[in-house]
């Protein structure tokens, strides 16, 4: 028995018919065709699926879709686009913080949430904010400096 999920995604109200067992990441990717959010582990460990739920980073692979009823979801598509990139996206590109790019949307979501709450974070605060995001390519150093530079420090 499908249920209707009403939520706001990147500022737009949406109503999606979902199986009660669906996870938020699959609804975003399959039903809403927002493919920027990636799936890495389906265990909430890698952070590739990070989206903002009412402003807070969550692992969307572990959020039952119906939990998002009435919530505001922001995905990477809501942060910036190719034509109008967010300062974080520009900084990541400039600083060499992107190699394969698979982890990048998740990192940007965590960094975006951090800068909303703490516009001038220390290195320690940055590292804590991204502690739920894994990168196999870059070794993290350039990701940390990209976020630092994006914060204007």
């Amino acid at each position: 028995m499908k249920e209707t999920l009403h939520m706001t995604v990147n500022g737009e109200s949406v109503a999606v018919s979902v199986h009660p067992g669906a996870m938020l990441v699959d609804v975003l990717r399959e039903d809403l065709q927002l493919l920027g959010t990636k799936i890495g582990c389906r265990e909430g460990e890698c952070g590739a699926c990070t989206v903002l739920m009412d402003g807070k980073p969550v692992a969307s692979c572990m959020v039952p879709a119906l939990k998002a009823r009435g919530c505001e979801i922001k995905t990477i598509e809501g942060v910036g686009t190719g034509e109008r990139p967010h300062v974080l996206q520009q900084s990541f590109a400039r600083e060499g913080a992107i190699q394969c790019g698979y982890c990048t949307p998740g990192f940007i979501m965590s960094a975006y949430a951090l800068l909303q709450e703490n516009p001038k974070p220390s290195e320690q605060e940055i590292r804590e904010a991204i502690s739920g995001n894994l990168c196999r390519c870059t070794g993290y150093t350039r990701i940390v400096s990209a976020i630092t530079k994006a914060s204007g420090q």
Partner: protein
Amino acid sequence: MRYRWNTYLQPGTVEEVLKLLDKYGSDARLIAGGTDLIVGLEKEECVIPVLIDVCRIKGLDLIKLDDGRLSIGAGATLDGIEKSELVRDKAPLLVEAVHMIGSPQIRNTATLAGNVGNASPAADGTLALLALDGSVRVAGRSGERDVTLSDFMLGPGRTQCGPGEMITSISLPVDEVKTNSHFQKIGLRKAMNIAVANVAIALSIEEGKVRRSRIALGAVGPTAIRALAAEEALKGKRLDDGVINEVSELCMEQSSPIDDIRASAEYRKKLIRALSKRCMENVLCQVK
């Protein structure tokens, strides 16, 4: 697409939850944040007929002072708890412990009640609550009851919360006695890891002497434990290097870890000694 449950209910009151638990029996499981439950379901590859989400219960996420106790609703997220002015003021040890759980993504979804209810012997939230004389409020058919944390934990994955029951809040006494505390955790990583060993210490020190002591050790027994002999040894003493060394040896002796995939029992015992020492040294710095 593989679905792990067929029905997802979001009742608005505790009474509704209890009625649903009665109605569905063993076909239903409770979910708060789901960060332990969903990982477990993936591993067990099982399908649950009914999931009952408690997070829409009005007021279940409240953190408040109630009759001399700090009460933390079962729906309060770890993030809400570590940012709460009330908790930071009255139970900084809990804030330290909660901050070491998972990652920001996990803490934004997970609950303290879930950490306690999941009953891992290595749980960080549970450990701090044990050192803070915490209690769990359980609601069931016969009404509500309060259970001390040590009574509540029965073994790995087992608690006194039975079928047809749910945790509604967790509370701890708040008194005027000044307490200094510290939490230490060592795992295989700096974040997103289960403790290989963890220690929570809360001491009340008056005129340089220990008046009241609580020492809780995690991941070194079937549940988190209080190191009672070590607590006794501290009473009336001044914290100095000699006492700290002696008491941390006692902590090591009181632990009974096993070998598992994360570490050996021998390593865990030594870790307990080192972490207890660090906690006491930190408390000593605080009071100086």
